[in-house]
């Protein structure tokens, strides 16, 4: 299957040339490589992992570039105070690409509160969470870049707001291959990035104890069914002493979750899940946990290319999900 994608893996020279020619870009790559790019109309985020045309790869000498030929757009930085107005700044008909640094306060705020932001779900927003090589976790900081000044930011988010012609619309899609398993239904008493006590099939219990008793594979996310959209929350770790389970995205109060069924042969299943004619792709990304757990290095995912990311944004923060955006007739 061929996919008409706006993105590709390039070397430093080609990325420089695009920026110097005035292109509007989103750039993903190793932080040191991003620092060598000239100032221009671009936003960036750190990750050395990519889904390229020839498969998953980890490289510090390449950059993944999405080029937007839709006008200049508007680049805007957001701190914790200004982030709730993200979509107020977005055009009435357009698309917002957002990059948030892993481990930052802005990411925590977005994960918690994005569903309540003004105009959320009414204006298309997609994006990703920047990160670092997994063997440098805890040592290097995840960064985003404001290409206008070249500044690298660890505690702010960066967004590119693009207006679309009246006859076009941007559609945000998420592909999760995980389905709720047959285990217990789990509800949490509060929204948060970790949990101890919860309701397990309606009865009070401890999540860690349940996971141990049920033999839950920690690589499998919790899955919630949002009117047919499967929303994953991945397990970050288990603190045995504190009986606490930490997540990569918050679990929400009032939402019912189950642990997912295992997915066998991710690339093959992904091919089945991806539409045969997705249309014009504006943007795509896939999750580092899919890359690691499903061993995507050197394997292709139905032609969907883009950065491998540490959290995905399709309106709200998602985990273990591929996100892509298409341009369609309004």
């Amino acid at each position, binding site marked *: 299957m061929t996919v008409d994608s706006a993105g590709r893996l390039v070397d430093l020279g080609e990325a420089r040339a695009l920026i110097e020619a005035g292109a509007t870009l989103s750039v993903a790559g190793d932080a040191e490589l991003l620092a060598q790019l000239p100032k221009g109309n671009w936003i960036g985020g750190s990750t050395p992992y990519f889904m390229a045309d020839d498969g998953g790869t980890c490289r510090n000498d390449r950059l993944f570039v999405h080029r937007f030929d839709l006008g200049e757009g508007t680049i805007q930085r957001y701190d914790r105070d200004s982030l709730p107005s993200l979509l107020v700044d977005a055009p009435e008909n357009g698309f917002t690409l957002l990059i948030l640094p892993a481990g930052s306060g802005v990411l925590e705020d977005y994960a918690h509160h994005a569903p309540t932001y003004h105009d959320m779900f*009414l204006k298309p927003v997609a994006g990703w969470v920047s990160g670092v090589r997994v063997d440098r976790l805890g040592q290097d900081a995840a960064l985003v870049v404001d290409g206008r000044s070249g500044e690298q930011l660890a505690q702010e988010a960066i967004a590119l707001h693009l207006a679309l*012609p009246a006859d076009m619309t941007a559609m945000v899609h998420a592909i999760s291959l995980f389905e709720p398993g047959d285990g217990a239904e789990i509800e949490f008493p509060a929204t948060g990035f970790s949990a101890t006590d919860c309701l397990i099939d309606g009865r009070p219990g401890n999540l860690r104890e349940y996971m141990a008793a049920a033999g839950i594979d920690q690589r499998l996310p919790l899955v919630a069914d949002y009117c047919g959209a499967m929303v994953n929350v991945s397990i970050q770790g288990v603190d045995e002493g504190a009986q606490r389970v930490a997540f990569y995205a918050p679990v929400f109060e009032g939402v019912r979750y189950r642990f997912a069924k295992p997915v066998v042969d991710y690339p093959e299943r992904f091919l089945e899940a991806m539409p045969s004619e997705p249309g014009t792709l504006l943007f795509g990304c896939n999750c580092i946990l899919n890359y690691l757990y499903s061993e995507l290095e050197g394997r292709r995912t139905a032609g969907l290319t883009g950065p491998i990311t540490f959290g995905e944004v399709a309106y709200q923060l998602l985990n273990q999900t591929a996100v892509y955006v298409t341009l369609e007739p309004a």
Partner: protein
Amino acid sequence: MRDVEMCRHLLGVKAPWDVSQVRMDVQSRQIHVYLTMGRSWFGRYLPDQTRSRWRHTNLGSCQTFIHATLPDDISDQDRKVAFLGESGNEFSHGLASRVVDCLQAGMSYRQVCELMGIDVHLAWQIRLAISEGTLPGVAADVSQRLKAEAPGVARVTQIPPGNDPVWHNMLSSERPMEVRMLSLRLLLTRCRQEFGQLRGEDARRLKINEIRRFFIKHEKQLAAEIEQLARFRDDASGRAES
């Protein structure tokens, strides 16, 4: 600051209200004005406020939208200023007043809507307010003339009006809907989670306006979903508490 200052004067915004932010959407020729009452519109964390969005009279050739949260304790006098509207409505008092003035000057309703760029959805809502007598200063003959005028604009859309029980029933039901768009799946889930916890009819109308606005914006892509709305018309489960 200059935009904010200019908007404050053009709209006649006075204390306790203030203009917090103005955004001009060049592509759609819309101006969005965000009003505050003594504190910032956007803070680090906002509890889920019930925010109204009213279409106001045009500024030049641009459609103008006012965004604000009406506090419960606002006085009747402060509530009735031209740039605000009723919390469940989607038009400002100023726009309604201008529509009534034009009708009383002899224009047909269709002409008024064309002149002011009022779309079919809003036209229906204003027309209903006039016919129900909830707008001030409407002469009896105008109301009669409006009833006699062919329904016209209101029949063009397949999307039910805001007071149709389908919206209330859809949001208070757990009945599955076949929804293809990710954004609508997420929005519908969130609205259903919140709807039952909302206190007061105004808050519920705002939530209905939010999801209905999604349907209006994506009407062409949502033919199958709009068709399913009719299934909720006779679903009485959600109407008991209204």
